[in-house]
């Protein structure tokens, strides 16, 4: 929880600024839409955090989002498969991608950066080839299956805000990953692997299996996220769908307290990291800043926030040291 305090602080500050200066920021519908977006990106970020915990990186998240997101309407509309066939197939393909990454990294000892960079190119290329570069959409059908991402649940007593359905998988996954990392032997082993792989291996930890598992989970969540994104958006073009989403996922995970050196993670931090990026984007529009400034504003605010967090940590650490020396 301590690791997440920084990002919670940044999130709170942005939220307050948005509430004061952003027109209609605190309306139910805006908060509902923000919850939806934060949940979607959280699912990708949770997957990314599992790989980052091992000291690895997955650059193919955006392309897996693209492949799964494009495959879903393509199989449903063009190939006329049923949703019951499509969903397991897409998830299995995503998990298989992760398995390939894991095996290439652990058995062939290839660099995660290289393996997933090649994946980034490969899966987007596959998506473009499969569909002949055609944009894929549901053509006004499949409302039922799309409700997986579009349904909203009313809260008794609250009129304008309904909980988007994507919150459910995001929360379930966050709780599961949180419990896995903090309450299970395998979770502790995963953290130990990230902190010092050699030491963990010599201690009898099945590091190769754990690293492979983390890549499977990451790609599976990217595939699942891609499916939810396409259910939400309705159509996508294989050449650009999911572009740079790996960066949003990695940024959310790192902002949330995952160390790129491995061995550290905070599930709550990751959720806040993903939400912060979305609230910031929303704030830029509602405050009325030029959309051309978006990336500059996001970069500046996050950099200032993270630097302030680091300075506060150092200041507190020194203060504790001084207090310790006195007593």
């Amino acid at each position, binding site marked *: 929880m301590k690791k997440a305090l920084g990002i919670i602080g940044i999130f709170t500050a942005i939220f307050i600024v948005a509430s004061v200066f*952003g*027109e*209609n*920021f605190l*309306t139910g*519908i*805006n908060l509902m*839409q923000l919850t939806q*977006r934060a949940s*979607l990106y959280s699912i990708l970020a949770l997957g990314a955090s599992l790989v980052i915990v091992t000291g690895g990186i997955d650059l193919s998240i955006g392309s897996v989002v693209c492949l799964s997101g494009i495959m879903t309407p393509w199989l449903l509309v063009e190939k006329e498969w049923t949703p019951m066939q499509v969903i397991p197939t897409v998830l299995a393909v995503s998990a298989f991608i992760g398995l390939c990454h894991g095996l290439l990294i652990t058995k062939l000892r290839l660099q995660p950066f290289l393996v997933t960079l090649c994946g980034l190119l490969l899966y987007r290329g596959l998506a*473009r080839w499969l569909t*002949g*570069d*055609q*944009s894929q*959409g549901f*053509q*006004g059908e499949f409302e039922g299956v799309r409700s997986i991402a*579009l349904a909203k649940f009313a809260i008794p007593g609250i009129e304008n805000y309904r909980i988007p359905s994507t919150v459910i998988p995001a929360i379930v996954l966050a709780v599961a990953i949180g419990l896995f990392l903090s309450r299970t032997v395998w979770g502790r082993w995963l953290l130990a692997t990230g902190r010092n792989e050699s030491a963990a291996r010599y201690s009898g930890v099945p590091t190769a299996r754990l690293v492979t598992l983390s890549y499977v989970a990451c790609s599976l969540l990217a595939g699942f996220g891609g499916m939810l*994104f396409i259910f*939400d*958006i*309705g*159509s*996508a*073009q*294989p*050449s*650009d*769908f999911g*572009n*740079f989403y790996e960066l949003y996922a990695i940024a959310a995970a790192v902002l949330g307290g995952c160390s790129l050196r491995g061995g550290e993670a905070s599930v709550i931090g990751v959720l806040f990291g993903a939400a912060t990026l979305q609230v910031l*984007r*929303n704030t830029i*529009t*509602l405050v*009325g800043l*030029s*959309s*051309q400034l978006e990336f500059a504003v996001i970069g500046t605010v996050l950099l200032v926030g993270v630097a302030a967090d680091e300075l506060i940590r150092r200041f507190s650490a020194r203060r504790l040291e001084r207090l310790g020396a006195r007593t």
Partner: protein
Amino acid sequence: MKKLISLVALASLGLGLVAASPAADLVAAQKARIAAFKAAPKKRPHVAFVSNGVADFWTIAKAGAIAAGKDKSINCDVTVEFPGGGLSDQKRMLEDLVIKGIDGISVSPIDPTNQTDVLNLVAEKSLLITNDSDAPKAPRLCYIGMDNYDAGLMCGKLAREGCKGGKVAIFIGRLEQDNAKRRRQGFIDGLLGRTPDATRYDEPSKVLTEAGYTIVGTWTDSFDRAKAKANIEDVMIKNPDLALMTGLFEYNSTLAVEVIKQQGKQGKVQLAAFDEGADVIAAIKEGFVLGTVVQDPYGYGFESVKVLNAFCKGDMSMVPANGMISIPARVIKKDNAEAFWKDLKAKIKAGKEGGSKDAK
């Protein structure tokens, strides 16, 4: 004395550079090559059609280009390239085509102002024409397409007919392209009932209040659809009284339809659309979208190949004095939506069946 000579030499070099525009020289050189083809025409030219991205729009254009290659009166080899990676990808493709020794290229430049080098290279080694989005300062022999300002004007007038005033928002993929800038300006001028002037430019970040309308802004998304959807949702939150919006790229309009439906705002927020997204056409038929302005990508592809083939035979007679071969846009409304959709589907099918990027 030496200094004086150097200064004079530098000055004359500078004057020489000013006097002879490289673009004009390259156009003249291309025309000279075409004139030479009159005496020795290319037997079976190989020409290329290069898009500015990947979209259904370009698949239809590809169908047109391939059909032209197979047309008995034309009969040439055609290569179609869709750059999926933006400016750098398009540059690489153009350079590769030049290396391949292609006879002529029709390209839709992504950022003509900053693509001078590669466009000059094409003009130097091959024959350069532009389609869909023009590069008037580049050494191109002609431009095939519609005037994007006029098309924007049509969209603006469509919006003005269907919505008599109020807040208006503009959504577009990016503003770097010449066609995007002109289309947006045309829309604004058409909506506000101004006297048409293609040289006018309203800053995207400026709020415009005129003739009973308030244009609250222009939002870009760099082709990120999740971002494009979020833009529409956020603008509707900020402006609950939004009367009208326009999506000036195909997917902007498609996503606008999606958001309107999701928020149950059919009939409350009007949409003047651009291009032929399936959901947009369905929404026009349902009656909650005013209409859409469509181009003729099939015509762009067909005419591009036809013109380049003629050049390789030494014939430039089809190029008018202003250098623009016009293929006008048209407005699709509820009454002609069904017929348009049937014709479009047939063309997309033909484009898909075109298969490989090289058609012989």
